[in-house]
């Protein structure tokens, strides 16, 4: 169900419940927070605060409202019934977006412990009318007007970033409480302060108060962390004592009123929006009263509470503020949310740092600290960290002692985390971080009832799929793309972007070989139901496939290793994300400059070279790419010698592959070198190879490989000499074998066609002593085992029937097989044995 509103007036509330004036007066609990029979009661809560939620439920029960108005987009009223629908599990978020421009979107997330969520449930379960009262999303997302209090401000589109989190307060958990246990800050009302002291305090706190009112109150109470202060006076109050404390809301509203005086913001955009929001809320309250509602409960961020208290000022001013507010067409829906995204860490303005902890506080029936630490111990054990019950006991003791030391009513998150660090994790920050991710933030994923419509990313994907004639089918379908046609190119682009987002709907098909595909790409698509969740997961990156993929790349470029970065460059090119690419290349350049390890550079280069080539096929500008690749090659050349000398057996094998990779990459880069200027990379690379190959302390495998590379490049005129030298008597057998392996690995062509070389090899084998031969046989056989059967046959054939006379090499005296006498040649028999070749 998508609510699309484009109306002028504040939303009209449906005729829900009947009026019950008399009844309400009768059920009023005289002990309840002094609310009595007030026609409007404002409950200023802290967004996502479980303590607020508990207090709120108690207060609602006591007040018995006939309508509940909740801070939230008023045009989302029709979505409220979904809250209690089968299949809806918090955390979920209200999502509003402009259908024609899904980039412009806003989220209003709710967890099970969010007061707003509990208020909705409370009202729905009792059949009490419930509605949202904040500025409709249609106005939140609208382009801003030119004239509205700020004449000098130019007209401009709503900033999508600002809009995304337009929901909650910009101040995390704005709101405050002066509960019975709380200290009274000198600025917030009474206090035994002289006017001078008060003035001084005001001056010192005015700045802070305008930015973060909660922090101002907390610092006045001597807390450095506003969250902790709030936890002490509101969130933890129900665990403090057995008796139910009185409602905190009246004191809260009073304190906020004082703070608002202090923090009267200048007339900037923010203040302007606040003004409009509060005007709208007041108008909604008036409308409810006008319809005859006798007991209106308003649930809003504590910051707004003083502005909404009854009696309200005349409506004229508010009507003027709201007049002419622009609107746009919006779509609204519920989407599943996660605790991770509730956390402040992911950028949600009104988030909380510890949704997992709050969820625990909300759900734990008793002993929250003990239960929490037991859960932590369980999580650590799952990770194979030895944590005994004795550990847990000690951790609980430490947490409680700390709380006592700090005069807190009970151990809070700070105490249990410190106890976890000191006792359960033995000071290991890594383990603590694991606990934080897993439990403190939590991994809960909400769900929405079936029938609730789609997120913008999904909508964008569906639109593109329609254009590109792609269907979501449960069976595997192969797409053979010809990149020369524009539709296939668009498809390929989409597929690559989806891959960047880890959406497994389409995966590269079997026959695709990265280094060969230039015009063809093969993909396979298969739709699974859980991809819907993956799409929502990916929606956090952006509202269109393109923007989400770009954001994802940006995240990689911030954290990835050099190799991951060049991999990302390749995928970025394929997915056609030029902006992300530019950013990526900047990071890449910086990282390459810093990375002293030539090995990393060598790992990184091939992908970059491939990317450069692909970019050309797609007509992307790759000059930057090319310059980065050139710098990489130069850096590799500078450090190669140091990196390869002294390499051991395992290192040498890995290094050989790297050298091959770099060599191929240099070839790719060189193949496209511009004639005008530019560095002669190939010459540089070969010169480096040559200098390195001459080193005596090089591993045999690498020595052989480098000579082979140089021979292939026709850089050496003394290959036979080098071969002979490498295999001469002074060299240990194992080294010779490694040399041969390096030289011949991955290709027999040279051996088949170069009679001179073949002779050298043959002579070497023939010249081996029995013992030596037994030593090197497995090594040499390993090399020849990599040749294909056809190559081995060809080689055997050549040895049996030499096409031309073999000129005698330095060690080839014993070879020179005369016609028809091959049976007598021990060397040939040996080669037969080596090659596994039988006539």
């Amino acid at each position, binding site marked *: 169900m998508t609510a699309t509103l484009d109306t002028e007036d504040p939303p009209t509330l449906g005729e829900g419940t009947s009026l019950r004036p008399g009844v309400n007066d009768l059920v009023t609990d005289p002990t309840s927070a002094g609310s009595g029979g007030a026609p409007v009661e404002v409950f200023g809560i802290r967004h996502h605060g479980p303590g607020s939620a508990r207090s709120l439920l108690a207060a609602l029960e006591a007040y018995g409202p006939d309508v509940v108005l909740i801070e939230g987009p008023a045009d989302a009223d029709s979505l409220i019934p979904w809250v209690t629908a089968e299949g809806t599990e918090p955390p979920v978020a209200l999502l509003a977006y402009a259908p024609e421009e899904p980039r412009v979107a806003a989220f209003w997330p709710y967890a099970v412990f969010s007061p707003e969520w509990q208020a909705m449930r409370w009202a729905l379960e009792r059949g009490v009318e419930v509605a949202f009262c904040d500025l409709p999303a249609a106005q939140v997302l609208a382009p801003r007007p030119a004239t509205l209090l700020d004449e000098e401000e130019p007209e401009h589109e709503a900033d999508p970033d600002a809009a995304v989190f337009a929901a909650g307060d910009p101040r995390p958990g704005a709101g405050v409480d002066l509960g019975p246990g709380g200290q009274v800050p000198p600025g917030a009302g009474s206090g035994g302060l002289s006017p001078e002291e008060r003035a001084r305090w005001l001056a010192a706190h005015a700045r802070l108060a305008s930015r973060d009112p909660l922090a101002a109150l907390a610092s006045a109470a001597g807390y450095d962390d506003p969250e902790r202060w709030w936890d002490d006076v509101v969130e933890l109050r129900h665990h403090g004592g057995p008796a139910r404390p009185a409602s905190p809301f009246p004191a809260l509203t009073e304190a906020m009123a004082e703070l608002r005086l202090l923090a009267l913001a200048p007339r900037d955009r923010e203040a302007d929006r606040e003004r409009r929001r509060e005007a709208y809320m007041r108008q909604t309250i008036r409308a409810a009263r006008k319809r005859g509602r006798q007991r209106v409960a308003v649930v809003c961020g504590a910051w707004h509470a003083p502005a909404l208290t009854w009696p309200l000022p005349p409506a004229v001013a508010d009507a003027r503020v709201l007049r002419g507010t622009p609107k746009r067409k919006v779509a609204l829906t519920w989407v599943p949310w996660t605790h991770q995204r509730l956390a402040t860490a992911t950028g949600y303005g009104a988030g909380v740092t510890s949704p997992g902890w709050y969820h625990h506080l909300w759900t734990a029936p008793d002993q929250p600290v003990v239960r929490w630490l037991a859960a932590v111990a369980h999580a650590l054990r799952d990770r194979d960290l030895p944590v005994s019950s004795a*550990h847990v006991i000690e951790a609980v*003791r430490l947490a409680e002692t*700390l709380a006592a*030391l700090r005069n807190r009513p009970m151990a809070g998150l700070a105490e249990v985390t410190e106890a976890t*660090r*000191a006792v359960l*994790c*033995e000071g290991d920050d890594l383990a603590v971080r694991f606990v934080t991710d897993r439990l403190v933030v939590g991994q809960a994923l909400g769900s929405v009832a079936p029938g609730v419509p789609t997120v913008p990313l999904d909508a964008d994907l569906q639109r593109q799929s329609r254009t590109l004639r792609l269907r979501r089918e449960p069976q595997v379908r192969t797409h053979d793309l010809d990149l020369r046609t524009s539709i296939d190119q668009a498809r390929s682009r989409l597929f690559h972007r989806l891959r960047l987002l880890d959406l497994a709907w389409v995966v590269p098909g079997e026959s695709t070989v990265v280094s060969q595909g230039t015009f063809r790409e093969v993909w396979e698509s298969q739709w699974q139901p859980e991809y819907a969740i993956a799409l929502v997961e990916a929606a956090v990156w952006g509202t269109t496939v393109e923007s989400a993929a770009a954001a994802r790349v940006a995240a990689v470029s911030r954290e990835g290793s050099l190799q991951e970065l060049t991999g990302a460059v390749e995928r970025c090119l394929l997915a056609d994300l030029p902006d992300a690419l530019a950013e990526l290349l900047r990071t890449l350049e910086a990282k390459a400059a810093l990375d002293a390890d030539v090995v990393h550079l060598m790992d990184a280069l091939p992908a970059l070279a491939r990317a450069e080539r692909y970019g050309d096929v797609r007509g992307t500008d790759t000059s930057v790419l090319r310059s980065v690749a050139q710098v990489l090659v130069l850096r590799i050349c500078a450090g190669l010698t140091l990196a390869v000398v002294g390499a051991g057996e395992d290192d040498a094998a890995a290094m050989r592959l790297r050298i091959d990779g770099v060599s191929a990459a240099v070839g790719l880069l060189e193949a496209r070198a511009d004639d005008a200027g530019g560095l002669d990379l190939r010459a540089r690379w070969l010169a480096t190879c040559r200098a390195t190959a001459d080193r005596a302390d090089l591993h045999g495998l690498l020595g052989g490989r480098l000579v082979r590379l140089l021979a292939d490049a026709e850089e050496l005129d003394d290959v036979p000499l080098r071969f002979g030298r490498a295999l001469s008597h002074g060299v240990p057998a194992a080294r010779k074998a490694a040399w041969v392996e390096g030289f011949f690995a991955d290709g027999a062509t040279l051996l088949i066609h170069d009679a001179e070389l073949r002779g050298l090899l043959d002579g070497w084998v023939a010249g081996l002593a029995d013992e030596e031969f037994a030593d090197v046989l497995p090594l040499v056989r390993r090399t020849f085992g990599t040749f294909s059967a056809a190559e081995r046959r060809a080689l055997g054939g050549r040895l049996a029937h030499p096409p031309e006379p073999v000129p005698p090499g330095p060690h080839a005296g014993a070879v020179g097989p005369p016609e028809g006498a091959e049976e007598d040649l021990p060397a040939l028999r040996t080669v037969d044995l080596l090659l596994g070749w039988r006539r």
Partner: protein
Amino acid sequence: MTTPAPADALRPHAEQVYAGELRALAGADDRPRPPRWRMSPWAVVTYLLGGTLADGTVIMPKYVGARRLVEVAVATLATDRALLLLGVPGTAKSWVSEHLAAAVSGSSTLMVQGTSGTAEEAIRYGWNYARLIAEGPSDAALVPSPVMRAMEAGSIARIEELTRIPADVQDALITVLSEKTLPVPELGREAQARKGFNVIATANDRDKGVNELSSALRRRFNTVVLPLPVDAESEVAIVASRVAELAASLELPPVPPAMEEIRRVVQVFRELRSGLTTDGRTRLKSPSGTLSTAEAISVVTSGISLSAHFGDGRLRPDDIAGGLVGAVIRDPVTDRVAWEEYLDVVIREREGWSEFYEACREVR
């Protein structure tokens, strides 16, 4: 228990230097105290982090850093768990341990210095062999270790560099920490710890694997990791105050405080340590040394000594350059590369640093 230090003690104990503060705190403190504590946990935290008492006594901050670390440490001591302070060299582990013991028990002298040669006697008890041979085993012939004395007195024992102690000797602590008793089979008795006894151990987590604690022993400790200072200002404050104290106790000729040079040393140390310049523009290679605050302190102190005895009595860049370069270059090959790169890329360009640059160039 606290005896005044001899007037010319090179380094008086914490409880001697701050005797006045300790007295004032204990006097002003009306909160509940754990058995045999000289003051309440709250007062111990105040003693370490500084503050002003109701009667106007100013308590100097001894440790500049996160309050929660000190709170966890003190809370640990208030439970009967032992405290293990971990950290790279120069993060004030021993300093904190000394002051904790001074504040809690009024004495920081019951201390075992852990070395690879530390024997079991240093943790349990030894014998006066002349007496042992003459009289046989008796209480008079027994020489109790600091740990045993702390158990009997109900006070804090300190063990420095716990991981330097051989593993079999470390294990002697297990009974002490879990059973809170030390059997003396030769005399057929045991020393039972009285309330107030606890152990503060320090260990260096850079030398991992020296003598890794067994998990049985590790389990008896709550661990607090002391970090390097978070921001430059607090590090400058630490260095400045410690340098002033040290200069006073070493009776160096007075040299006017040179905040500029201290700031410079701290900035160089921080930049090299984090591998990033303060303005966040340039990445740097980090040298292999710890470059801890303690080293910064000693660089500045030796600079002051240089300028007082050989210079013009004012701390100048060439007084600190020698010590600074020595602290940075620990590995003659890689560290030198890092340092010279830093010198030429960052320092040379920096405004107002040319004198310092020249001084560093000279000593390299």
